């Protein structure tokens, strides 16, 4: 199993395609950071316009923590597309290259083979997120400094003390990792059914796009299925940036407004992951390799 995993990781990180996602994330983050660095003031005015009518908000609003929040909002919608580039290629790509049949004539169990491949795809996802975290959080902290974090929600704003932010990002990135591994599991599952990688990649992307639309549209017809769509839960990382208040409307440091919501999402995502991986193993064990 360990040998298989090593081999899978070796293959992933020797492929040029692997680095497309890293390059894309780097470029996107750099562009947004540059934009905010140069023109952050007018961006903040735009975002804060409503509050600024009644309030005078001062301090380093556009700090590294806030920039990271903006970046995650913009990027976590698109990172799934980058992840599907690799995950949806894990099996189909080998089938396409013709290496799948050669691999499976070696004395390896198909279950271990699938698990090793899935774990490798997950590790790739994690490394991508670590890279995302380094750029979006640490580089932003270096570029924009740190201060309290001011998060605007639809119906209220939350101010989080500077010393209460970091652990929330640890939680948010941890959650994002789980969400992205769910995407990887979906792509991986779909990659079983094709002998070229384009099909599963496009299918994965389409599923994500359609499910995201269903998750974001407030149409009664879709409300019933919403809680079961993994895309509904991908955005739950934001719950880490909401605090409880006491009776005096005073923030209680180190609290989460809706910890149950996070737990629910974690459960839904885990169920998806286990489901996709189990289905992958079940199907692959019976699959005739004709490629």
């Amino acid at each position, binding site marked *: 199993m360990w*040998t*298989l995993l*090593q*081999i899978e990781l*070796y*293959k992933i990180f*020797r*492929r*040029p395609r692997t680095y497309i996602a890293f390059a894309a994330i780097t470029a996107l983050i750099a562009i947004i950071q540059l934009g905010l660095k140069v023109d952050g003031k007018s961006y903040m005015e735009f975002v804060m316009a409503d509050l600024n009518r009644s309030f005078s908000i001062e301090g380093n609003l556009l700090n590294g923590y806030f920039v990271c929040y903006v970046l995650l909002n913009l990027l976590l919608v698109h990172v799934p597309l980058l992840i599907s580039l690799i995950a949806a290629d894990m099996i189909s790509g080998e089938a396409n*290259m*013709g*290496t799948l*049949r*050669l*691999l*499976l*004539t*070696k*004395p*390896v*169990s198909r279950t271990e083979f699938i698990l090793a491949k899935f774990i490798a795809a997950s590790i790739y996802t994690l490394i991508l997120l670590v890279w995302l975290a380094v750029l979006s959080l640490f580089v932003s902290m270096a570029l924009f400094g740190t201060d309290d974090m001011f998060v605007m929600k639809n119906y209220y704003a939350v101010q989080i003390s500077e010393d209460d932010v970091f652990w929330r990002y640890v939680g948010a990135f941890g959650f994002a990792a789980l969400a992205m591994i769910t995407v990887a599991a979906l792509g991986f599952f779909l990659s079983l059914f094709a002998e070229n990688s384009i099909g599963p990649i496009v299918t994965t992307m389409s599923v994500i796009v359609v499910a995201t639309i269903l998750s974001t549209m407030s149409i009664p017809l879709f409300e019933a299925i919403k809680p079961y769509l993994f895309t509904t839960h991908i955005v739950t990382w934001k719950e880490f940036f909401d605090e409880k208040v006491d009776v005096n409307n005073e923030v209680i440091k180190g609290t989460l407004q809706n910890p149950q919501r996070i737990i629910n999402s974690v459960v839904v995502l885990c169920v998806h992951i286990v489901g996709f991986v189990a289905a992958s193993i079940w199907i692959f064990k*019976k699959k*005739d*390799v*004709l490629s």
Partner: protein
Amino acid sequence: MHEIIRVTGLTKKFKDLTAVNDLSFSVKQGDVYGFLGQNGAGKSTTIRMLLTLIAPSAGTIELFGKKLQGNKHEILSQVGAVIEKPDVYKYLSAYDNLRLFAKLSGKKIGPAQLMEQLETVGLASRAKDKVKTFSQGMKQRLGIAIALVHDPKMIILDEPTNGLDPHGIADIRNLILRLSRERNKTILVSSHLLTEIEQIATRVLIIDKGKKLVEGTAEELFDPAQTVVELSTLDNAAAARQLAGSQWAIMLQPQREGRVVLKLDRKSIPDLHRYLVQHNVDVLSLQPRHSLEDYFLQLTSGNQHVDAFTD
């Protein structure tokens, strides 16, 4: 000599298509087992079933005296295979590909052994080059290196000469002979070309539409005493009548497309010729074939590969 492969009643159905139909055969240790059939005859499906890539619909496969099902790891670690085109990771070098697959075979194989293996297939000088720069023949040789790297007892080669030039085909043929004679490997090699098989095989199996057509040793199938002659004359019917009333009658076979067919010892052909001339039969052609070639020609008559079997 004990059996390395024993296949009994092997059947594979894909929806409506029966790709392999109740196939039984066995391969003994030291055999170079030629597996002949047209494209689509079921060779590849059979080979994939031997290698656990495809699950049989019915029948049993035993390798090294053990059921394949349930002993997959133990069996596959003693088998090396090249299936159709030898596809490897194009973005990796020949050496890295070999190392990767060697690791999967479960045996510890050092860098020196890997290089030695590349040496035997003549790729040592290109070891560090990415495979995407390789010609088809080089990829084929790398595929064989991968099949051999863990020193398996049995080697399965599925159409190893596909896409190769005559020089490459000769290379592969010599390699197979060397592996058999010098390293005592049991080899199963499939092809749709008789010429390839007849030069190397010790036993031959011909299948068509998933069914066994004939199986036997090369001695039996290439036996000169079993030569088939196809006779073409100006009046085939008259010629047949003439022969039926003569000492040649017992050698007569059913006619094919009007032509007279006889089965006889190769040494008797001049006598037959003389007899026909003496009895004023106007002979257009007299074509002798050994029985295997004859089988295969029947199989492939009207097929594009027919020219490959004529002398």
